[in-house]
């Protein structure tokens, strides 16, 4: 079997294949639902209802997409420069920790100022957390896949320590969580009474900013050059090490914004289970987007819609809610395959 590039893939091809991926996912989900005693024919409808069926559902989907946009951007930026950052989860928590440190009363400032400071501090924390593996990579050649992965475990334990120690809410009745943010430290909601908050808007802005950096600035050019061919970049005079470190700062900072947005916008306090793996799902989102910053927004919405819709569907038809994760995984795998096949033809030989 051999893949042959298609010079100009037709629009039909580019639309049909992703659609087929979704159909295949739905078919598999329906079969699984049938096995568990649910109504297979209700699967599709219930997913749509669950993800988009009401203002609440739609906003929940956007809400779920918010941290994924941030982590997706973080991964996209890093992967473009071939910095394999698997540690967005830890960087997210680093941002969240800064919010819990600064936003619970330590700083008494007007909301715009406080939020800005918190966001910057969060970004710095996340950036620092990725800077360490990046330095280990550039200075000592230590594989960053492993260090960033291990940092996830280490940092989560550190957060656990903070939440049972210095950051523990004195009013929290012993449960390991941080104190509540003061009102000035909260990102306001976009729609009253529903959870969607301005973190979503911030995520969209971040995507545009990253896209601008990527397409319009020298840093973007340098990051891509280093990612594509570090040797040629070094020869051409691009400061490769510096670029990798800058990439790390940007990527870590973006991932940390996910933590900022989740704590300041959604939860109002830090717990150990702030993120159900947004850092890892960010990898999926970024790759679905082919590492394009604006594509990340679309991919995050897609992933969020599948998850929220499928989760709600599993309740509606009474099958175990693990079906939502199965659907997410199958949709992802089928979708990346479909995207590939829009650009390549399979030839047998």
């Amino acid at each position, binding site marked *: 079997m051999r893949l042959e590039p298609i010079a100009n893939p037709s629009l039909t091809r580019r639309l049909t294949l992703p659609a087929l991926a979704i159909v295949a996912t739905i078919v598999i989900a329906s079969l699984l639902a049938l096995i568990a005693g649910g109504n297979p024919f209700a699967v599709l409808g219930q997913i749509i209802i669950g993800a988009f069926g009401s203002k609440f559902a739609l906003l929940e989907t956007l809400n779920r997409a918010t941290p994924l946009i941030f982590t997706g951007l973080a991964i996209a930026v890093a992967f473009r420069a071939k910095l394999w950052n698997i540690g967005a989860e830890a960087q997210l928590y680093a941002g969240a920790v800064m919010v819990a440190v600064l936003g619970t009363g330590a700083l008494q400032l007007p909301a715009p100022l406080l939020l800005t400071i918190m966001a910057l501090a969060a970004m710095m924390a996340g950036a620092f957390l990725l800077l360490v593996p990046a330095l280990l990579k550039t200075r000592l050649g230590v594989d960053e896949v492993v260090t960033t992965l291990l940092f996830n475990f280490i940092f989560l334990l550190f957060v656990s320590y903070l939440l049972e120690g210095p950051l523990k809410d004195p009013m929290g009745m012993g449960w390991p969580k941080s104190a509540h943010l003061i009102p000035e430290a909260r990102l306001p909601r976009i729609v009253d009474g529903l959870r969607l908050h301005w973190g979503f808007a911030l995520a969209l802005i971040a995507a545009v900013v990253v896209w601008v950096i990527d397409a319009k600035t020298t840093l973007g050019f340098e990051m891509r050059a280093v990612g594509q061919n570090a040797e040629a970049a070094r020869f051409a*005079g691009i400061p490769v090490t510096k670029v990798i470190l800058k990439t790390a700062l940007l990527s870590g900072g973006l991932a940390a914004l996910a933590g900022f947005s989740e704590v300041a916008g959604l939860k109002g306090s830090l717990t150990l289970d702030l993120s159900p793996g947004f850092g890892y799902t960010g990898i999926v989102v970024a790759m679905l987007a082919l590492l394009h910053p604006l594509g990340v927004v679309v991919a995050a919405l897609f992933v969020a819609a599948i998850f929220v819709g499928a989760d709600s569907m599993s309740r509606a038809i009474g099958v175990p809610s693990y079906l939502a994760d199965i659907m997410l995984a199958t949709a992802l795998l089928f979708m990346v395959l479909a995207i590939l096949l829009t650009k390549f033809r399979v030839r047998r030989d």
Partner: protein
Amino acid sequence: MSGVDSAQPVLRLQNITKRFGPVTANEAVTFDLAKGEVIALLGENGAGKTTLMNILFGQYTADEGQVSVFGKPLPPGNPRAALDAGVGMVHQHFTLAGNLTVWENIVLGAQPLHAPRLRAGAAKAKIRALSEEFQLKVDPDAKISALTVGERQRVEILKALYRDARILILDEPTAVLTPQETDALFATLRKAIDLGLSIVFISHKLHEVMAISNRVLVLRHGKLVAERATLDTDRAELSALMVGAETSAPELSRATPGAPLLSLAQLSTPPIGTAPGLRKIDLTLRAGQITGLAGVSGNGQAALSDLISGLVSPQSGTFEIAGSPVTGWTPRTAIAQGIARIPEDRHKTGTIADFDLTENTILETYATQFSKRGWMNWRGAKAHAEALIKTYDVRCSGPDARIRLLSGGNMQKLILGRVLENAPRIILANQPVRGLDIGAVNYVHGRLAAARDAGAAVLLISEDLDEIMRLSDVIHVISDGRLSPEFARGTMQPEQLGVWMAGDGFEGENHAA
């Protein structure tokens, strides 16, 4: 040459056609290869030579046509079948696993995968015997990554011989070889012919073609356009057949050397891997002069090139550019000092394969010329690239094409344009024509000569002694990190340079110093 038995073709290609999307790489190519015969396959970069050989070896599948070996048709797209039928191929870009040893690379795939044990001892013994017989000296236990290019080539040939190849395909085997290594290779090939093997040989170097082949086939745009018995043709005719028109080497005017632009005195650099660093060398590059650096690869050329490129800093000694010592030496300062650098490996160091032509053109100048306070000036960059494509005659679909789609010659033209466009004072040209067809070679040489006439100091590093002697106003020889004195044009014969290349001229010098 004797022994050609044309009555009985060992290999027959019939009507081979291969398309890559819109490109027709081979069109209805038909030829026979006789036992003991050497066919030379000629053609410009991108003419379809490699593609044709890949089809014959089963790595590509032809869209039409048929390959037969010893009268039996080969199943398409199956290298294993080709190997079993006795076809061995030495690829243009080596196919060796760097982290494995020589014998492991050779044995790979030769013993059935389900065999319970690797028979290392027997394999090494067979390799030693073959080495002996074909004069292919190489240590079976050495790691590929520690070998020189010439040694790797020998491993490639051993791979084919180990599997009892009866037909050898060599795709530009000499592009990366020194003259000495080329001679050794030819000795090996003659030995193989004597033993009844048949050979298809691809090269852009016509004197080699004339020296080794019985028959010459010329490909142009995928089509077989001419077939000549080697004895009935000459270099001029062949180059005309290849390019489709006459092409000639540039005529060099008399040199008018000017002020020293770059001078090294007693300069040393650290070694690079197994290759030596520079050992207390003295070198002066003058305006309006081409300085040729002859030598067997791996003798410190890389160190000198890296030094001048800005990739390494001197360990000791003085390094002056236009009379002032260099400080904070990086590629960027080198570029700022007006050094144009043509790297040895255009694929790995010269270009970024998946970047488009515009991006590749501005790799060295985006910061100084095509951006303002961190913002890229893409419009300017693209205009610049378009102009460059025109001036340097880069054949491509436009500035938005990915550079990986360019042939080596066109890639090299783009690199030339990129560095010459800034009116450099000093030009470092490291193997500037490796792998290029004659047309491209003449073009590149012409450009270098023009730059020299405009007052640039040129350092030409090459293993091709012909090229060095033809182009250089003065010549140095490098050997084991040491540099010979300067020899003016016409004062040295190739044999004399060869003595220095072998490291023999230095003895007396060292004692005297």
